[in-house]
């Protein structure tokens, strides 16, 4: 099944399991969301559990906060990455902080789903990668699956999580298919655990979301050219599973971090900073970052130049190897 279908199935299971799970967002009902991730759910669970909201993102998240205080477990859909900013205040000042503010007396088990990233030829504001804004915000968990199996498991874990989770969905991978074990318990791995997708010995590429498939492609090409690349799928961006990354770097001695977001102050900065500190004596070459440029997202006819591809990843791996 595709990632989109896996998320749909995961949401369905989450709703079946817990009657307090309520979905909210723009066009998620009859339309099933612009990416059809909620397809069929309003039909099957009714319009009191799958709620089309007025067109206002702060309103979506702000009312979800109130619902959570009433004991519900809301799952908000933000239609596209670029539309999450009107809800930023509610997310940063309320969702992230309410538990702490109330010394644990208020729970905020809210999931905010955000399709994100580029590569689909979209118009402006539909290809952004705003994840680091949320990763930097204490009180939130930020995760992103890269494939159908993870999507299916992680969305259920996110919904079941008693902390607020910003759940970034790599929209250009929605249609990519993979095996999904629908019977899988949601507790197989903690939500914040990274995964070594492919083992390697010469260098590590740490990627997440849409970039994992790209990193795997780089690893395949690398292998043909005689370079053994280990690929890590971070899966969680806050917290980051540094244990897995650092173990890999201690083995390979070289790290490239890849994401679509601008490199400057992106998540790669945190990973590079941390790994440079913790693996100071294991690094054979500086950690390198490959990612979006320090520019706004370009018109789609230029996006392939903006987005990291396997070549750019390999270019950075090469620079590590040459250092």
């Amino acid at each position: 099944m595709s990632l989109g279908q896996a998320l749909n199935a995961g949401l369905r299971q989450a709703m079946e399991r817990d009657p307090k799970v309520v979905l909210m967002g723009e066009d998620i009902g009859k339309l099933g969301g612009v990416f059809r991730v909620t397809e069929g759910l309003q039909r099957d669970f009714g319009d009191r559990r799958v709620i089309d909201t007025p067109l206002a993102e702060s309103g979506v998240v702000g009312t979800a906060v109130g619902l959570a205080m009433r004991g519900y477990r809301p799952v908000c859909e933000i239609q596209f990455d670029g539309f999450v900013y009107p809800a930023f205040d509610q997310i940063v000042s309320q969702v992230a902080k309410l538990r702490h503010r109330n010394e644990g007396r208020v729970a905020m088990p809210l999931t905010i789903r955000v399709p994100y990233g580029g590569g689909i030829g979209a118009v402006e504001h539909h290809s952004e990668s705003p994840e680091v804004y949320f990763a930097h915000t204490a009180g939130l968990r930020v995760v992103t699956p890269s494939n159908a199996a993870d999507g299916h498991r992680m969305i259920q874990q996110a919904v079941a999580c008693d902390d607020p989770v910003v759940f970034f969905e790599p929209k250009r991978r929605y249609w990519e298919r993979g095996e999904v074990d629908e019977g899988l318990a949601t507790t197989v791995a903690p939500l914040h655990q990274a995964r070594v997708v492919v083992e390697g010995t010469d260098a590590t590429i740490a990627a997440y979301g849409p970039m994992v498939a790209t990193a795997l492609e780089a690893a395949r090409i690398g292998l043909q050219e005689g370079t053994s690349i280990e690929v890590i799928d971070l899966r969680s961006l806050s917290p980051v599973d540094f244990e897995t990354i650092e173990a890999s770097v201690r083995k390979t001695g070289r790290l490239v971090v890849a994401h679509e977001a601008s490199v400057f102050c992106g998540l790669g900065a945190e990973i590079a900073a941390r790994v440079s500190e913790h693996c100071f004596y294991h690094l054979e070459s500086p950690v390198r970052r490959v990612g979006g440029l320090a520019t706004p997202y370009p018109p789609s006819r230029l996006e392939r130049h903006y987005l990291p591809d396997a070549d750019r990843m390999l270019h950075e791996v090469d620079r590590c190897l040459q250092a």
Partner: protein
Amino acid sequence: MAIAPARVPERGIPEWTGFDGLVQLISVDGQRTVGCPYWELVADVGADQLRDLYTDMVVVRRIDVESMALQRQGELALWAPLLGQEAAQVGSARALRPDDFVFPSYREHGVAYCRGVDPVDMLRLWRGSALSGWDPAVFGLATPAIIVGSQALHATGYALGIMLDGATSAAVAYFGDGASSEGDVAEAFGFAASFTVPVVFVCQNNQWAISEPVRLQSHGTIAQRGQGYGIPAIAVDGNDVLAVLAATRLALARASAGEGPTLIEAVTYRMGPHTTSDDPTRYRSRDEEEEWRVKDPLVRLRALLRAEGLADDGFEDSVTAAADEVAARLRRGCLALPDPPPDALFDHVYAGPHPLIEEERDAYAAYVSTFDS
């Protein structure tokens, strides 16, 4: 005071423009107004209840005065006085039922008092020893919202939950005239109207948002803003405790009857500074302050009680004594409020385990221990 749950009058929200277009049951000089249809909503309020309302207002004002003093003496970091808004707060809060849930702003000490919160706990936030002071679930009262207007959406969402639960309670959002300009309040109006949820918006129009007069926010009335979203609105004399009580009861009855949101604009006055950091002499006139002093909500209720023979010197002395006692307890409690232990920094950031928090907790402990040795 929620003893006589109001029924929604058959003809919906009664029109009444007796006093400056506002619903008023007690005139400025303490007379009962005649003919106002809102009287039927407080028909059960007899002598004892009137005296109780008066007592509440005196105690709440005393808490406010004491807190101002504590701040001036350096015991609180800040205080936002409610002086002048006692009727708006006590009148509305006393209409509430135990299972209603309130989302206040930072100035609703009177509401918190009526919900049963220990005044000492109110001070935790202002002393800087905590970010909150009580368990919201216990009192049906959220921690005060400091981000102006944000709580209107929370109340709307909570009310949606009430509706989904099939319950008959209501959510209540308190906010100010300034807050009515924030997009969040407008979105809350829209969501509440769209979903027809049981929420009551209580806007205390105290004429000022720090230094900005209400006419800067709105050329019309705030009540009209709600009406534009299809939310019935009641503009009420916010210094008249009975009128506010009546309006709130009506709004709650509408909510419970499934008729959706109501906006109450309680027209009142912030007699003090915005907070202890503020200096109102920079932006408003003594004349204006004098004009409103005449409308003081306590003076007015006392005049009524006196005129109707419901209060004598003995009663007033006992009320003062009760208020002094609360104030003394408040002062003692404030001074005794403990600082939280540094380690509390890391508590309750997340519900579940979080490696970075644990790492920083350990690092902090290790760092602190370098000083011990």
